[in-house]
């Protein structure tokens, strides 16, 4: 992965979230408070502004830290804390260099997922973004271990992530605001899982075309 790819992934993720903002808000209205798309879009606009600013860092670790701080300070809610924690932790696994190999990028993704779980205490099946992150990471690691190219693996993960997000629908939420609805949370897709699937689509879009 190059730092140019890393930046473009975040520009693309911002575009996708803005495109799907109303849909994410609607999903959130059903089991939360109708602002998931708005909050994430606001944070990603700040990320894009920071990454595009003059004098913005060009090394992967510094870029990743910059994205984490921007999300942490503008998204708010659980999403801001979770995405911010993920990026700040992932930055520690990335080099102070403009490129890294696939194994390093995958290791950074693992750090991100671990940070999300330690910050949010969610387990698989709790109807949160972990239900996409954890299996998506497992697929990524397995694909790369089998010798699949980073490009092909990213596309496979992006496809799987959409299915994983859909599969949160029947679950009863045990973490996050939807958990207050108890059994009434079943039958609705988790909005944080949908936005996580959009992230993986952004990764695939950029990695597959560069």
């Amino acid at each position, binding site marked *: 992965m190059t730092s140019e790819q890393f930046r473009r992934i975040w520009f693309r993720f911002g575009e996708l979230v803005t495109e799907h903002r109303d849909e994410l*808000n609607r999903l959130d*209205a059903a*089991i*939360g*408070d*109708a*602002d998931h798309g*708005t*909050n994430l879009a*606001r944070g990603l606009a700040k990320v894009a502004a920071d990454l595009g600013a003059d004098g913005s860092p060009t090394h992967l670790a510094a870029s990743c830290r910059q994205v984490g701080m921007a999300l*942490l*300070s*503008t*998204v*708010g*809610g*659980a*999403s*801001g*804390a*979770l995405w*911010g*924690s993920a990026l700040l932790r992932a930055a520690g696994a990335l080099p102070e260099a403009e490129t890294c190999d696939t194994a390093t990028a995958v290791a950074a993704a693992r750090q991100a997922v671990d940070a999300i779980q330690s*910050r*949010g205490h969610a387990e698989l099946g709790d109807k949160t973004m972990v239900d996409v992150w954890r299996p998506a990471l497992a697929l990524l690691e397995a694909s790369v271990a089998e010798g699949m190219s980073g490009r092909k693996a990213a596309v496979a993960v992006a496809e799987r992530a959409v299915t994983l997000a859909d599969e949160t629908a029947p679950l009863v939420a*045990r*973490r*996050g*605001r939807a*958990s*207050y*609805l*108890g059994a*009434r949370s079943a039958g609705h897709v988790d909005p944080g899982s949908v936005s996580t699937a959009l992230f993986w689509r952004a990764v695939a879009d950029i990695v597959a075309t560069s």
Partner: protein
Amino acid sequence: MKKVLNRVEDVVDEALEGFQAAFPTYLRRVEGTHVLTRTRPKRTGLVGLVSGGGSGHEPAHGGYVGYGMLDAAVAGEVFTSPTPDQVLAGIRAADRGAGVLLIIKNYTGDVMNFEMAQELAQSDGIRVEAVVVDDDVAVDGSLYTTGRRGIAGTVFVHKAAGAAAEQGASLDEVRDAARAAIAHVRSMGFALAPCTVPAAGEPTFTLGTTEMELGIGIHGEPGTERRPVATADDLANMILGRLSEDLALTPGSRLAAMVNGMGATPLLELAVLARRTGQWAREAGHQMDVMWLGEFMTSLEMAGASLTLMRLDDRLAALIGAPADTPALRQGVVHD
């Protein structure tokens, strides 16, 4: 959507300016932040109190900045937790050298962001303790879930901890006073009509003309159950029964109560709930020390109310009854 706004994205910022404009003797905004802090800070050596959360709960939380309650209130976007850097700015503003207590409502986002701020402040050398309020009996508390929400009972916790801090209690003592308040306070709410988050533009749920949502939180989220609308007395009986059971009240309990409007319920109707709350306590043989009636923790323009009961011992009764002088709560004679 019809609202009194300029630009949707400016509502929080402009409301904070408005609070400062209306209450300059009480509070000021920490420049460049979403933090309201006391105009006249408490004296050095007293414990600072910080609370906050998403906007849309006015007068919470800025309305409780002042003598006997909070030293700083941190506002997030509407119904969205403030970010760690903002909470950190609140902690710095509230610190008078004796440490800072964070009063957090039990929402996933609030807990995460306040905890991150606590970690940042501690690495700056400020001693910070935190308590999490979870007074909503409508939600099942379980070790395996997020647990009960923090709702209107939080204001009683501000009051009790704020009084302890003002009396010169140490950080550990103020934290323990807050914990005692949390252990003895329970709330539950209902909605007759939903609210509209400005950025979303549409109501967060819809209700038929004869339906209500029971067990709502304070973020416009649907409740735990939908039922036909009941009379004020039936509603009060049902909610007070739930609170009483959860507090394991025995006849002769000493109580504080709060009848809290969610934003669009007339005081006239809230007063009908207050009437039944007083009757209910007498019939059950309880002693009602104090009842607060009004809007303390709202949910934008949601129609509905919540009822809160706090079981008092001598210590809590003294803290709840102690003087306070804030934009939204003024009682007693203040010796400052």
